[in-house]
Structures are given as C-alpha cells and as structure tokens.
C-alpha cells in the first residue's frame, strides 16, 4: 500500500519537476497557438503560394505549373501597377492621418474632465461599429443624389448645387473618400493604443521632468515623445498591416472604380481571382505585398527597438 503511494508520489513529483523546467513549460504554453496558426494560416499560405505559380482557374485548387508567368504578367499589367501605387497611397496617407489625429486625441483624454466619458463614447463609435456595415453606410453618405456632406457644402456655399463633388465617381475624390473612411474607422483603435502607452509612462518620469524644469512642449518633445515611440510604433505597424491587407472599404465603396483608379492590391486580387476566375493570377497579386510588408514590418521593429528607452 505504502509502496504504491510512494510510487504515486514520486510520479507526481516527476511530473512537477518537468513542468518546472522553463523550456518545456514555455513550449507547452506556446504550442497550441503555434499549431493553430500553422494549420489555419500557414497551410493555406503555402497553398496560395503554390497557386500563384500555376494557372489554376475558377476555384480549382490545382493547375498547371507556369513558373513566374503570373508575376511577370502582373508586372506588365497597367492595372496592377496602378493598384500597387494606390495601395501605397491608401495605406500611407490614411495612417499618417490616423497617427496625427489619434496622438492628439489621446493626449486630450489623459486627464479627467467633465464629459470625458461621453466624448470618449462618441470617439469610439467608428471602431465599435462593424466596418462592413458602416462602409455601406458611407455609400449613403456619398450618394450622388442625397449626400449629406454635399448638402452641407451647398448650404455653406462652398460649392454650387450643380458642381457638387462626385465623391465616388472621379479618381481623386474617390481616392480621398476611401482614405477618409479608412482613417475614420482606424482612429479610435489607435487612440486606445496610444492611451495605453501614455498611461504606462510611470509617474516618476513626469516628476523627474518637472524637477529638471522641463515643461509643456519641451517636455513633450524630449521626454514624452521618445517614451511613447514604442507604442506609437505598434499603432503604426498594426495600422499599416491592417490597412494594406484589408479590402472591405475600397471593395464596398468603389469596387476599384472609377475605371480602376481606386483599385488596391487586395481588391484587384479578388477581382482577378474570383470574379474573373483567374485564381493563379489573383494569388500572385495578393502575395505581391507579402515581401514588401514583411520588410516594412521588420524595418520598423528594428527601428523601434533601437529607439526604445529603458
């Protein structure tokens, strides 16, 4: 009896000993996540890479090997080159707007003031609402007949009734429309991240700065900004990645129009791969961003680590 108990106890302690070892525990804890991602992101990614080297059509997941033909064809395609440029514009401009606005808003919300809760609620709305639905809502706001923006512009005599901007119908206006909507919905997200970052700056830093006589703008530039750089970097990175790989806003608002002037890589990949049935080419277009984005991400992370203050 006691022998069994002794064996049982030693088995338990052996188990405990194993779970005490750092490496093993770490692997154990990380493995479900890794497995999940490998299965649901890794495998389809490999398949998508394979497809981009074939001439797969119409939903089929196999095709004849064609090497780099899809990529070569894309590079020669004027619509694709346009999509590349539009993706760059769309991502960079919207995220710059987001960072500037979010930074400003976050600083305004640090300390309590009356009505802060309500104002924060209004600012969170664009992010809380599902984007697929709000994008359809913006179709209504930009409607050529009944746009409320145009109504205001006319009432304020900024434009005349016969020359209202065609928000979704001319290249420049359409581009600015999708950039606006993307910035509109990302700002609250960035604000939240900034708020976290600002709050994580310990009080001691503030006090030390005050002792050293750094106040106001000077304090902001030399103390707060460098400390907030890591968190700003995170907001920028996620913003860039989510914007560059997201197709909902351009897809719903303009579907790439007018005549492909707001076509971004994701919508073009969709149009080529799904609507036109050209899976291989669509995969090639979609994957084009991958190395570029990877470089951008790694570059920024390296920069962030160098600039980290701790």
């Amino acid at each position: 009896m006691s022998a069994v108990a002794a064996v049982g106890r030693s088995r338990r302690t052996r188990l405990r000993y194993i779970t005490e070892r750092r490496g093993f525990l770490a692997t154990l804890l990380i493995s479900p996540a890794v497995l999940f991602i490998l299965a649901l992101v890794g495998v389809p990614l490999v398949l998508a890479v394979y497809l981009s080297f074939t001439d797969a059509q119409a939903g089929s997941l196999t095709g004849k090997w064609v090497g780099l033909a899809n990529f070569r064809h894309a590079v020669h395609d004027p619509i694709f080159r346009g999509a590349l440029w539009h993706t760059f514009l769309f991502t960079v401009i919207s995220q710059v707007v987001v960072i500037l606005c979010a930074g400003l808003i976050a600083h305004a919300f640090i300390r309590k003031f009356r009505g802060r809760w309500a104002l924060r609620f209004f600012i969170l709305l664009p992010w809380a609402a599902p984007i697929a639905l709000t994008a359809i809502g913006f179709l209504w706001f930009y409607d050529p007949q009944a746009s409320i923006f145009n109504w205001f512009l006319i009432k304020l005599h900024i434009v005349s009734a016969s020359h209202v901007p065609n928000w979704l119908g001319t290249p420049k206006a359409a581009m600015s429309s999708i950039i606006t909507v993307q910035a509109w919905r990302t700002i609250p997200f960035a604000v939240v991240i900034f708020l976290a970052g600002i709050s994580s700056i310990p009080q001691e830093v503030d006090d030390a700065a005050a002792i050293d006589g750094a106040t106001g703008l000077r304090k902001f530039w030399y103390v707060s900004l460098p400390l907030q750089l890591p968190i700003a970097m995170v907001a920028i990175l996620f913003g860039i990645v989510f914007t560059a790989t997201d197709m909902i806003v351009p897809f719903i608002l303009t579907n790439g129009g007018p005549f492909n002037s707001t076509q971004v890589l994701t919508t073009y990949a969709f149009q080529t791969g799904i609507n036109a049935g050209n899976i291989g080419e669509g995969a090639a277009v979609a994957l084009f961003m991958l190395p570029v984005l990877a470089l951008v991400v790694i570059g920024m992370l390296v920069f962030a680590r160098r600039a980290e203050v701790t």
Partner: protein
Amino acid sequence: MKSGWRYNAFSYGVAIPFAIVLAFPFFWMAVTSFKPEAQVYDPTKVWSFHPTLANYGFLFHHTDYLRWIRNSCFVGLMVVLITLLVALPAGYALARLSGRVGRSMGVGIFLTYLVPPTLLFLPLSRVIAQYLHLSDRLWALIVVYPSFTIPFAIWLLMGFFKTIPQELEDAALIDGCSRLGSLVRIVFPISIPGILTVVIFTFSLVVNEFVYAITFISSSTNRTLTVGVPTDLIRGDLFNWPGIMAAILIPSIPLALVYNAFLNRFIAGFTGGAFR
C-alpha cells in the same frame, strides 16, 4: 498641479471637434433610420422630422436580423474564449520564459497578418468543407477566426505581462508555489485588465470580419450580422437605406458603450496595475 484651465481648454478644444466629426455619420444614420422610406431621396425633406419606427419594425419582423445578431454574438463569444485559452499561456510564455526567442516570435506574430484573407478563403473553404465537414455552420467561423485573433491577442498579452514585475512571481515561488501554481494564482487575477482588453479587441475583430463569413455560411438563418445586412437589405436594385441605417446603429451603440466601460480597466492595466 498641472490641471489648469489651459489643459482643460486643450482637452475640450480637441475632443469636441473630433467627437463631432467622428460621430456625425452615426447621427445622420439615426436621422435616416427614422425616415419613411419614400422620403429618403426627397431633397425637400432632408431634415424633415416625421419619425417612424417602421424601419426598425421591418428589421425585427421581416428579416432574420435578431437571429443574425444572435449568431454574431455566439461566434464572438466562442472565439473570445478560444483566443483567451490559447493566447494567455502563449503570451505569458513569450513574455517571461523565452528571452530572445520570445522577441523573434513577436515579430513572427506580425508576419501572420501580412497574408490577406482575400485569397486565403479558397484553400480554407476546402479544409472546412472536406476535412472538417463544417460547411454552412457557425462552427466553421469559430474555428477559423482565432487564426487572426490569436496573434494580436498574444502580442497584447505579451506587452501586458511584461509590465507585471517578475518579483511578484518570484515571491510566490519562494513561498513554495509551483510555477504553474504561481501562474494561476498570482498572475492571472492581476491580468484581468489585460484579459478584458483581449476580449474587446478580439470581439471587434470578429464582428468586423466579412470575407470568411460570406464564404462559409450560405443559409439565411446562419448568417452573421455583416453578411445578413448586405444580403437581405440590399435587393439588387434597391437599397433599403433607412433599414440599413437602423441595422448599423443597433449593434454599434451597445458595443461602443461596452468598449467605453472597459477602457478604464484596460488603461489601468497598462498603468502598472500590479501595484495595489
């Protein structure tokens, strides 16, 4: 004491204009949602106020709207659960136990987001249909969504766990707790704000998703909110604008309220909430 009128002026001066600009579309949505459908295009009746609840009634009685909301909530909650279950241990491990490996894993997390779902859904649909036999079931979404919520959750939690000082756990270890035990008994209770954060962000990622929802679900009763609205409220030629506006408002306001409520806890989490 820094909170003088200057600071308040700055706060109000920034917060109020931005709040107006960001929230105005929702105000206009509300106005439109109470208009009778025939008046919506009438330029003479832009601001006329003859409110009607007909559009809301239509949503609730003539479409599966409530069911879509239920489906979205169900998927959201399940995905949040799965994400927490998988990301909490992983985030902790990466923050504490893996040093250099942890940092490169952090980079790796970003890289999983570089793959757009615009084409991923094709190979995934084969997996869902053939190998998992989950075609047209909400479980298909519940299985797939964590693939993009987990990386972000891990990153959030990593950052969060790093703010919890190692001393707390070391103290527990000295007191005779096992490593796992200190994890469960000391760290997790403190990490409630972090968990709430993950809940908010995960839920918002789920609710925003469109491509997979369209692909894997076809029957009207199984649709989520993002799919049901474009499908049933847009009849090809005809956009039921007031109905659509109502459909957007109904989930947005509660969600924003909840996020707002959680926000304080979330921020407290990052403010070194470990110090009581």
